[in-house]
């Protein structure tokens, strides 16, 4: 039999087709799934490793055994509180890690930051790349809090593209704004976003002027940022046009990289909105008071508090739990959380309540998210403890940049979502996170992880990012026991356990080198421990571990989170 036929046959025969229409892919949202107990009440079940790992999968960009041990020693309440407790101080800004022998920045020394300005056209792309590297540094660092996951949520929600925003300083300031507000107050966050220079550039607010208003931001403010496009959101095209008029006049000061209100560009007539907004009239104001109309507009939008709160909570739910929201979830999870959210628009209590809920920890909600491409890379990096250089700064930034490019290769270029609505995984019904996967991206995702694990990724001539598979095995107790080693590895990497038969096959074909007795691995491991500098012995255990890990990384189960 040809190899390809064999593959096709084996896989096709084994794929369980429960329902030939819905079993394979969503043509509509699946309605036959048990979505678990729909209760927002705090989780009271047992706090085992499965629950710890589920929490870490959803709130961190990866973890290793030490992280699991750390949180397993707490109770659920303390663990979630710990994760929600993000650092008070923002991360230090990105640095000049881009000097080369051919071209050095004359104004910014290597290892110092460029974000305090001014922009330098000669270094625009270097500084953008520095921003991406720095961002990957935040994602890949060993911190045990939710900040980067929340930041990614808002980056997707308030989507802008660094490559389109122009100034790297303005782009950095935007991303600092996202991090600073990621668990803050949504109402004030929206105000900051509305006058944020990056957003003004990206959605043309900076050229929105009374003579012919530009509707771009006004539309997305309602459709994508606050009200959504659901059945309960009935704003009209005229509302978009009037909102655009309200927002005329915001401009950017290109020497301070801040926004200001220019009254001469502002449309001062009264703006009348539709019955959806109770026919609100925003009274036109002249002079500096014209800027106050922006607050009136946001107040008017937030007066539709149920619509705004439910839209945001639903999006948070889909990000942290699962993309299917049925009427039961809507009634018992979304609406109660939205009712709390709309009282003061604080984000942190809502996310905390969701993460502590019975529903979140229900076994049916484990493992059902498809990892985004950054998660594919970052979970691999953290599980295998890939080491990044401590110096020089150029090497550090190149190494993080390499990880950024791997994400882009698999379909997710952070800083540059496809468009203003972010990635389809977070809005494209009915497939949502399934959209990450297709015959182009799935092989790339697998290839990346296997390459990082087995051969390494050369980010600079002679310098590699690579897993230390022996250290990976050594983090577990009794790595000489192949059955236990495989189980410990599966528990850490895969959200769905394998059958006993599969584990036996895996063990025999990898750690036991085709034999049936555990003795082969135990001996190989113990021989290596006795002589860790012996290249042959080290090579033997390395090969066995790499075979085992490749087998697991190739599995469909490894795409889930």
């Amino acid at each position: 039999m040809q190899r390809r036929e064999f593959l096709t046959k084996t896989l096709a025969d084994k794929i369980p087709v429960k329902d030939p229409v819905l079993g394979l892919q969503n043509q509509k949202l699946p309605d036959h799934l048990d979505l678990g107990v729909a209760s927002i009440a705090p989780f009271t079940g047992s706090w085992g490793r499965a629950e710890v790992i589920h929490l870490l999968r959803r709130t961190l960009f990866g973890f290793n055994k030490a992280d699991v041990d750390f949180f397993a020693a707490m109770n659920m309440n303390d663990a979630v509180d710990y994760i929600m407790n993000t650092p008070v101080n923002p991360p230090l800004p990105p640095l000049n890690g881009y000097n080369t022998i051919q071209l050095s920045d004359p104004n910014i020394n290597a290892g110092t930051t460029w974000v305090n300005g001014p922009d330098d056209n000669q270094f625009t792309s270097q500084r953008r790349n520095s921003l991406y590297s720095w961002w990957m540094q935040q994602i890949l660092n060993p911190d045990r809090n939710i900040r980067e996951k929340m930041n990614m949520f808002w980056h997707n929600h308030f989507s802008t593209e660094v490559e389109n925003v122009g100034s790297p300083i303005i782009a950095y300031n935007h991303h600092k704004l996202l991090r600073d507000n990621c668990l803050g107050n949504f109402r004030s966050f929206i105000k900051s976003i509305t006058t944020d220079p990056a957003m003004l550039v990206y959605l043309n607010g900076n050229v929105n002027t009374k003579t012919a208003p530009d509707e771009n931001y006004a539309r997305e403010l309602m459709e994508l940022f606050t009200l959504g496009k659901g059945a309960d959101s009935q704003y009209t095209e005229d509302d978009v046009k009037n909102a655009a008029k309200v927002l005329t006049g915001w401009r950017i000061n290109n020497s301070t990289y801040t926004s200001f209100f220019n009254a001469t560009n502002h449309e001062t007539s009264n703006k009348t909105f539709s019955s959806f907004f109770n026919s609100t009239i925003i009274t036109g104001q002249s002079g500096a008071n014209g800027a106050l109309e922006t607050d009136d507009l946001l107040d008017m939008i937030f007066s539709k508090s149920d619509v705004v709160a439910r839209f945001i909570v639903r999006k948070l739910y889909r990000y942290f739990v699962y993309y299917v929201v049925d009427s039961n979830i809507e009634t018992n999870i979304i609406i109660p959380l939205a009712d709390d959210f709309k009282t003061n628009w604080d984000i942190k209590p809502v996310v905390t309540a969701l993460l502590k809920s019975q529903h979140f920890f229900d076994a049916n909600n484990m493992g059902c998210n498809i990892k985004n491409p950054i998660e594919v890379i970052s979970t691999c990096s953290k599980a295998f403890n890939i080491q990044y250089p401590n110096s020089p700064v150029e090497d550090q930034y190149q190494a993080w940049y390499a990880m950024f490019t791997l994400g882009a290769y698999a379909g997710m270029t952070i800083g540059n979502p496809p468009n203003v609505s972010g990635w389809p995984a977070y809005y494209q019904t009915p497939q949502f996170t399934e959209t990450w996967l297709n015959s182009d991206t799935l092989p790339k995702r697998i290839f990346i992880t296997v390459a990082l694990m087995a051969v390494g990724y050369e980010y600079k001539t002679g310098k590699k990012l690579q897993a230390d598979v022996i250290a990976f095995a050594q983090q577990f107790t009794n790595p000489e026991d192949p059955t236990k080693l495989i189980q410990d590895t599966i528990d850490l990497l895969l959200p769905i356990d394998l059958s006993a038969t599969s584990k036996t096959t895996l063990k025999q074909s990898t750690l036991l080198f085709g034999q049936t007795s555990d003795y082969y691995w135990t001996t190989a491991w113990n021989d290596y421990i006795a002589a860790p500098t012996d290249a042959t012995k080290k090579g033997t255990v390395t090969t066995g571990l790499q075979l085992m890990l490749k087998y697991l990384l190739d599995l469909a189960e490894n795409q889930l989170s």
Partner: protein
Amino acid sequence: MKRKDFLKKALPAAAVPFLINGISIKSMASTPMLEAIKRASLKNGRVFVLIQLSGGNDGLNTIIPVDQYSNLSAARSNILIQQSKVLALNGNSATGMHPSMTGLRGMYDSGKVSIIQSVGYPNPNFSHFRATDIWHSASDSNQYVGSGWGGRYLEDLYIGFPTGYPNTNDPDPLAISIGYSVSTALMGPSTSTGIAISNPTSFYQLVTGTVDPAPNTPAGHELTYVRLVLQQTQSYNDTVKAAALAATNKATYPTRNSLGDQLKIVANLIAGGLQTPIYTVNIGGFDTHSSQVSSAGSTETGNHADLWKKVSDAIAAFQSDCEQLGIADRVAGMTYSEFGRRIKSNASLGTDHGAAAPVIVFGKNVNPGIIGANPTIPSSVTVNDNVPMQYDFRQVYAAVLEDWFQASVSKTDSDLLFKHFDTLAIFKSTLAVKKAQNSSSIILMQNYPNPFKDYTNIEFVSPGGHVELRLFDNQGRMLKTLIDGNVSKGSYTEVLDGTNLPAGNYYYQLITATGQVGRHLVKL
């Protein structure tokens, strides 16, 4: 529709006489195999390439209504292409092309381009994402359909897909999206019919593991999906790679042109022998709210000019490649965008989201020329005014399905486009199943008086049969159907009661069995 229901529904069709090499198979029992044989003969080797222009293309600065210049310059002087720079089209003085579109102009002049004017749908949506869904699902504006028009066509053609595919008869992918994601136009009723490819000669080889049953949980649901993608990827790897290696592109493609890179792969795979009928490619950046042109004094340069240079150069290279590779007879393609842009420009050298826009179909077998009239630009244009639709986008799809792919009209009406749409005469009549239609036999007069205060008369000549007279507002919303019924051949006058209409520009449209035509009217 569930597949089981669909099969039941489709079975009676197999009893209709159907000839394969002159032999009627009517007397044979209806079986899935029979259906498969019938479908196999429908796989006629033709390929259609969907070129998506993401963001909403400004149709008025693409296919330029030269006869509307004075009104256009009142509405969009800061972005309008100087009339002297518009590319003239052979045999058509009223319409021209953006100065960047030299490649497509050359194809037009040599009879390889069909332009369909003002393509849209009633009650247009101005959200990128919803409008894209409408175009890809071929639904009405207020309908939500999860599958795509291409996917429905392919799942109908390839019985039972994906179970049992690929196989000896159908070894190739049903559809290919070049790039990182599969177009939602390719979503079939049960699964996506498309695979994504960015490099056809490089694939990753998986080890074969045993596959455990998926648990009956949401995680199991997603696991099954991942496995399907894995299986398809592995299954189609070798055929795609073999096709890519079996032929070499012959034309020179433009460099630094992402669309050219994609079309180059398409030509390579077709010439290499893949029987895949539908390819999708994509180029973004058309959401030109600002800086559509570089300056009011230099409107022929800027972002929109750069984009159309890329699109036009890429298509011209692709066409040349297809001709040199000997596949041009069976390859055609079209450009489309989720909407056009507003007639009136904004102060930021750009245009906001709009409604109808031209679709460009290309290939050796298109009926060359322009279908439909130039959009008429009112003399006084407000920020609310949009280009009204002349043709429904599903009429273009109907032509692709029925005339290019030769799907049956009944199938197209019932399952592929959900209702009947008259085809447009996009493809040469020698190809077309039905006679090409044109709108010359129907006459719609300018209403009088116009502008009007309370009442106005709309006069038309019907060739007989079903007529529909519709009124749209300036944003493309269908306000009412004035006439909807059968009439005998002759001249008719309909009185429009405009007493309740707000002042402004409106559009009325007459649809008959032989075509459709529309005009503007102005309420004072």
